[in-house]
């Protein structure tokens, strides 16, 4: 009764499975990955304190851009207010460490969980909105949450801010701690995106991004998939926010519920290539290094520079670097595949 491939018939493999990288290609990847790993681990040992701090910031943005990419690039939902989970995570760490004397890593875990739960609760209602309306709603949620945190001043310190316990250790040690912490979080984010991109969740999200009705009649539970995607994205963002709180040691609601920061990570994801695995990392490094190297000195004009970059990205590379490169490479690969078939 089967149209194709009953369990007996698909034993014979008429077609090779999905294209797998050749051994040479795989070896090349391993070498590149090893080099990157060494490059990533070394900085605290040979760079100045200033640069270690700058790179820690880069890693943080790369992690955030990867997290927002799950929504923007895969599910196609412009979660412009995603920074709400960053703030939620940051304040979770602050409150737990200050009011309940928990250790940092316990507080950090709680930050990730709380942010994820928050997204899961909001998700079923808010993810009914599509496109920009969802984006606007998330901006609203961010503002409302920020005000909530400000008003719960007994718990959070309110508008006066709150001091988070300092890292117990020397300056060198502290620098290394936060560097590796952010590196770890970035690796976690990128790894998560990589896993998503290869499994059913990734396929389901890409399908619903293209067409929700089409995806749903193919068996994709679009409601659940969207909520799962947002929950993961929020959890990662919450973790990074929690780490940031400990790093910064002083929190005020406007610092961590900053919509500018949110849009920045969004631009990073787009710049690098939304929906790719390493695009957002590339975008984050490019944008942060650019502003740090060239205009970072003019502290006053930081936002001006960011604004100009935003406008230029939208005007000239709305598809992002990686997609640009990917399309070129993809074209080549397809041509090559055709040649192979012609030979055989």
């Amino acid at each position: 009764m089967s149209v194709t491939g009953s369990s007996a018939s698909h034993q014979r493999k008429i077609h090779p499975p999905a294209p797998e990288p050749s051994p040479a290609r795989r070896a090349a990847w391993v070498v590149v990955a090893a080099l990157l790993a060494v490059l990533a681990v070394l900085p605290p040992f040979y760079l100045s304190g200033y640069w270690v701090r700058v790179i820690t910031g880069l890693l943080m943005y790369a992690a955030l851009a990867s997290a927002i990419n799950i929504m923007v690039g895969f599910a196609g939902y412009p979660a412009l207010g995603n920074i709400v989970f960053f703030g939620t995570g940051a304040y979770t760490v602050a409150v737990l460490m200050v009011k309940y004397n928990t250790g940092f890593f316990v507080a950090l875990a709680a930050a990730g969980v709380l942010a994820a739960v928050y997204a899961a609760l909001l998700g079923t209602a808010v993810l009914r909105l599509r496109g920009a309306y969802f984006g606007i709603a998330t901006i609203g949620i961010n503002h409302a949450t920020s005000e909530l945190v400000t008003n719960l001043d007994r718990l959070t310190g309110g508008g006066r801010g709150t001091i988070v316990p300092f890292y117990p250790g020397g300056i060198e040690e502290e620098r290394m701690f936060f560097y590796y912490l952010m590196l770890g979080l970035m690796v976690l984010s990128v790894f998560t995106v990589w896993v998503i991109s290869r499994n059913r969740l990734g396929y389901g999200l890409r399908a619903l991004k293209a067409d929700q009705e089409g995806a749903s009649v193919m068996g994709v539970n679009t409601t659940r998939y969207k909520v799962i995607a947002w929950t993961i994205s929020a959890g990662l963002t919450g973790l990074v926010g929690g780490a940031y709180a400990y790093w910064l040691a002083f929190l005020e609601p406007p610092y961590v519920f900053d919509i500018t920061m949110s849009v920045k990570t969004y631009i990073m994801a787009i710049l690098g290539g939304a929906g790719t695995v390493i695009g957002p990392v590339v975008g984050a490094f490019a944008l942060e290094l650019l502003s740090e190297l060239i205009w970072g000195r003019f502290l006053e004009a930081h936002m001006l520079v960011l604004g100009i970059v935003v406008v230029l990205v939208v005007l000239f590379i709305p598809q992002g670097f990686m997609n640009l490169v990917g399309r070129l490479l993809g074209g080549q690969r397809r041509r090559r595949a055709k040649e192979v078939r012609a030979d055989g």
Partner: protein
Amino acid sequence: MGERTPLLVGRGVTRFFGGVAAVMDVDFEVRSGEVLGLIGPNGAGKTTLMNLISGLIPLSRGDMLLDGRSIKGLPPWDIARLGIARTFQIVKPFAGMTLRENVAMGAMFAREGRGVPAREALELAGEVLELVGLGDRMNSYTDELNIALRKRLELARALALNPRILLLDEVMAGLNLKEVERLMELVKTINARGVTIIVIEHVMKAIMGISDRIIVLHYGRKIAEGPPQAVAQDENVITAYLGRRFAQGKGA
């Protein structure tokens, strides 16, 4: 195997949009293994009926039974997993995915009730693409296809679910005569392999040629039902839809 037992049953199927009934009190039965044609003028409610069957919109009233069990209120993904697949009149390929990935979706998420692993789904997708004649374009992207090939892709995507019931919403619209004939052959092949088919089509020759039975809808109501020849002679159908010329041309 119980030939010709009702597989899908609709009872008093009704759907309102605002105050307007798009589908009103339609009863129908689809027997296992048959090809059921749905015809009627534009706006008669054919696509709405298909949307109701596939769960994209909920019933306002009535009930729908698959194998005697109600599927009323189930979301589209559950209905897909029960083995009801469909195509869309306006094709909905997943942009940014290759043809193989497009077709693999149905297998990955709905085949055998819960979907099969990604690798297996991609493999199956290759076989289905071969069946519909797109085997040599597996790694192309959907925006590289013309309309005829997109229609084939749409069909392949539905087939990858390994459906029990296949809903075809105007898969032949916009195709030339030769392409229509080829697609008709394909539909017959699929049906011969045991898939029950419900088909909406405006190409009269095609739908008369492939349907075992036809239901005619007019303003949301069923006005006729029966074998193609009988329906083509029905007075109500002729005045509402077919017109004199068709009936005379076909008539004895």
